[in-house]
């Protein structure tokens, strides 16, 4: 499964949700997770000043969209309300942008519509947990089938 971990960070920069979605993902303890999420938030904010291009429309906050390395790939979606969804995955996972938009839809349906959930607070909702995990694992499995490394195997089985 090429998708490793999903993080959700609120407007203030604190981690409100994280989930390991694969056995290959590194298990990190809760404190380290919080710390790393805040570091990413800081990097995100600084990225716009580091960029050589001046943003045309200042209303849209600029920041890190993707970090691609040899060993992993990190993609980030920043919503207009200040929430950041970022996910780490295998370097050849190319479906992450669409996946993050769908996670945003699931967030709006399962988290915000819960009357006991306070906005910007840590998410502890079983419903959301299950829905997001099953959705991402399913998408990752589908994505895996489309990736070039698995194509020779599937074509072999074609009659």
């Amino acid at each position, binding site marked *: 499964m090429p998708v490793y971990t999903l993080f959700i960070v609120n407007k203030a920069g604190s981690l409100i949700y994280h989930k390991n979605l694969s056995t290959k993902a590194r298990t990190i303890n809760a404190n380290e997770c919080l710390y790393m999420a805040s570091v990413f938030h800081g990097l995100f904010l600084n990225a716009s000043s580091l960029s050589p291009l001046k943003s*045309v*429309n200042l*209303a849209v906050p600029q920041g890190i969209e993707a970090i691609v390395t040899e060993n992993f790939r990190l993609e980030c979606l920043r919503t207009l*309300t200040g929430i950041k969804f970022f996910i780490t995955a295998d370097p050849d996972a190319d479906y992450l942008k669409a996946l993050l938009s769908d996670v*945003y839809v699931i967030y709006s349906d399962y988290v*915000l519509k819960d009357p006991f959930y306070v*906005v910007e607070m840590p998410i502890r909702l079983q419903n959301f947990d299950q829905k997001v995990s099953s959705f991402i694992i399913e998408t990752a499995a589908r994505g895996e089938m489309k990736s070039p490394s698995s194509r020779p195997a599937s074509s072999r089985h074609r009659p």
Partner: protein
Amino acid sequence: IDLDVTAMSYGRMTRLGDSAFEKMEKVNSELLAMTYGALVTAMIKDFQDIKIVNEELEKMGYNIGVRLIDEFLAKSGITQCRNLKDTAHYIAKVGFKMFLGINAEVSWSSNPRQFSIEFKGNPLIEFVELPEKFKDLDYSNILCGVLRGALYSVTLFYFLFANRLQRSV
């Protein structure tokens, strides 16, 4: 250079609103009208003062708005507004259509920073007749609150929001 400034014409916005409306889960509009009417009646009984009821409806709307904005942005896929004109049209053509099935129009005042959104069919006021003693009640004030809450969550700078409801008889 990836400039993400998509110039959406207002016709496209209407189509976006319609397609978003198609995809949304729907509930019986009479159920909504009845429960909203019951809510307002209960509030009037509890608070007695019409002014307080207006304020409370607006506050309720505000709390709905701060959550609704994420659903609106996620399901319509809107990324940014270039200016206030875009904001006004997105609210009218996409927002109202998506959530209430209302076809709304934007009209501008002489002040370029002031606009009003008008629509004819309001699902909240189905079956409602306001008696004379409640003529100061802003029955659909919850909608004003929703707009205030939603816009407050996405603006980078603070702007004052003045909502005036005009009931058409």
